[in-house]
């Protein structure tokens, strides 16, 4: 067995997995705070990336465009709270889930209506080429860009985990997630909490959009990265931030390893669906995911 090749696949897989985690994070945030599976997360990624790249192409400065896009995402969450979430307070999670499907189409349509539907290239200044010194020393090819993406995801997750566990906002978020009515009755401002969560999810969508956009181009297909986040969520658990990361790493490595070592036996091309097989197995064995909260119903 060629070990340096094995490690290259392994590390490459982990780093690719981090990219999935970035998208999965957005889902986790909203699920944690409102118990809603936000189907529109993929559309938010697309919308954020398209807005950012369009501003960039109109000669905006990078950070100015970033700040502006962030402002747009905050505005979007305020509007969403007003028009979608507020009228549906205390409705079942399924109702809210359906509402986010509607939101998906609105967002996809809106972004292409405003910015057009042609694909854009995005350059973040980090080359997507192997690091030469590492290749010479160990014969392992790891892309600069992958490492950069991993670092960004790491910082993002560390921050979010701290906010959720240690701050009062985090506690209020968890409280709202657990029981809307009780949270209201002790004076937690539900509306404000939702706006904050959706804004943070919007921020995460923007970061994910930039990373994926830089790799694959900013185009409609970006909305489909959300589908790749699904197996990650099933593995990691819908309400766990660390779970999103571990889930991403597992999905990333297994699908790359499967492609390289199992692929040839079945004629290749299994990378695109292998993640779903893992997710399916997980659903059978541990439906709450690795880090999800175990659901115990008292009878």
């Amino acid at each position, binding site marked *: 067995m060629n070990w340096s090749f094995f490690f290259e696949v392994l590390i490459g897989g982990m780093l690719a997995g981090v990219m999935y985690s970035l998208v999965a994070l957005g889902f986790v945030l909203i699920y944690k705070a409102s118990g809603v599976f936000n189907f529109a997360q993929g559309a938010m990624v697309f919308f954020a990336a398209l807005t950012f790249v369009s501003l960039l192409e109109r000669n905006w400065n990078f950070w100015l465009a970033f700040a502006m896009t962030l402002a747009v995402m905050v505005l979007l969450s305020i509007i969403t709270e007003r028009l979608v979430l507020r009228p549906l307070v205390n409705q079942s999670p399924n109702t809210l889930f359906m509402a986010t499907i509607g939101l998906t189409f609105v967002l996809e349509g809106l972004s292409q209506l405003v910015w057009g539907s042609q694909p854009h290239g995005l350059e973040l200044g980090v080359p997507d080429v192997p690091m030469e010194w590492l290749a010479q020393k160990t014969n392992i090819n790891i892309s600069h860009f992958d490492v950069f993406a991993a670092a960004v995801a790491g910082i993002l997750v560390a921050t979010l985990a*701290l*906010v959720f566990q*240690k*701050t*009062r*906002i985090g*506690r*209020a978020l*968890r*409280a709202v997630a*657990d*029981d809307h*009515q*009780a*949270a*209201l*009755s*002790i*004076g*937690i*401002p*539900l509306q404000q909490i939702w706006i*904050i969560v959706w804004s943070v999810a919007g921020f995460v969508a923007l970061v994910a959009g930039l990373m994926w956009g830089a790799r694959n181009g900013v185009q409609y297909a970006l909305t489909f990265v959300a589908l790749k986040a699904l197996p990650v969520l099933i593995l990691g658990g819908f309400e766990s931030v660390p779970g999103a990361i571990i889930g991403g790493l597992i999905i990333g490595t297994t699908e790359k390893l499967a492609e390289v070592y199992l692929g040839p036996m079945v004629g290749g091309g299994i990378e695109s669906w292998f993640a779903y097989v893992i997710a399916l197995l997980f659903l059978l064995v541990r439906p709450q995911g690795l880090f999800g*909260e175990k659901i*115990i119903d008292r009878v």
Partner: protein
Amino acid sequence: MAAGTQERAKQIGDVILAIERVSLAFGGVRALQDVSFDVRENEIRAIIGPNGAGKSSMLNVINGVYHPQQGSITFKGQSHSDVDSHKAATQGIARTFQNIALFKGMTVLDNIMTGRELKMRCNFLQQAIWIGPARREEIEHREVVEGIIEFLEIQAYRRIPVRQLPYGLQKRVDLARALAMEPSVLLLDEPMAGMNLEEKQSMCRFIMDINAHYGTTIVLIEHDMGVVMDISDRVVVLDYGRKIADDTPDKVRGNQKVIDAYLGVSH
């Protein structure tokens, strides 16, 4: 007994909450019809009645969950008619729930700390950075919460997720969270429901202690007549959405209408 009653009578203050001619209907079902009563500062006020009498509806009207079609509610001299439960909380009305509405996945401590939410002032950014004022604020509120934890004797369970606690203790945590809001009026929705005798007795003791120690006005609804009679100052009795009695426990106990409502008579 007589001396104790007199002493309590001295502490009880002016009307803090007035319910006037309140009617509430859900479609064709009349949950409350023309109900009036008042609650005085520092008293323990019970609302009792058989199943379906409208007790929970009454509590939800006071808490701003339901809005009555007719009548008015005055809280601390201000009209309370278009208040929702969040607003009620900001005005100093806290409540517990019949079917315990705690945050099940969170620890006892975190649950009670959420009760301090309204008292905290630091903004989102300060909290996110978690320095200086935010940290000091957290410590300050933690001290208040520790006091309540000690008061309700749940020190041993601080770090345990609420879902793992037995029912009686969950009820106590629910009470602690409401108490953490330092409310002027505390609404208790069947605090003794589903408890055994020993748990009921300790809950009674806690309710009286809260009333004496924090000076909190308490409105409690209860299905079981026996328990509340011993701890209440005045009792409202509801039956089929109407008020049928409003008096001291002793007089209510002897009221023929109340006896009929509870035992059932042929009309």
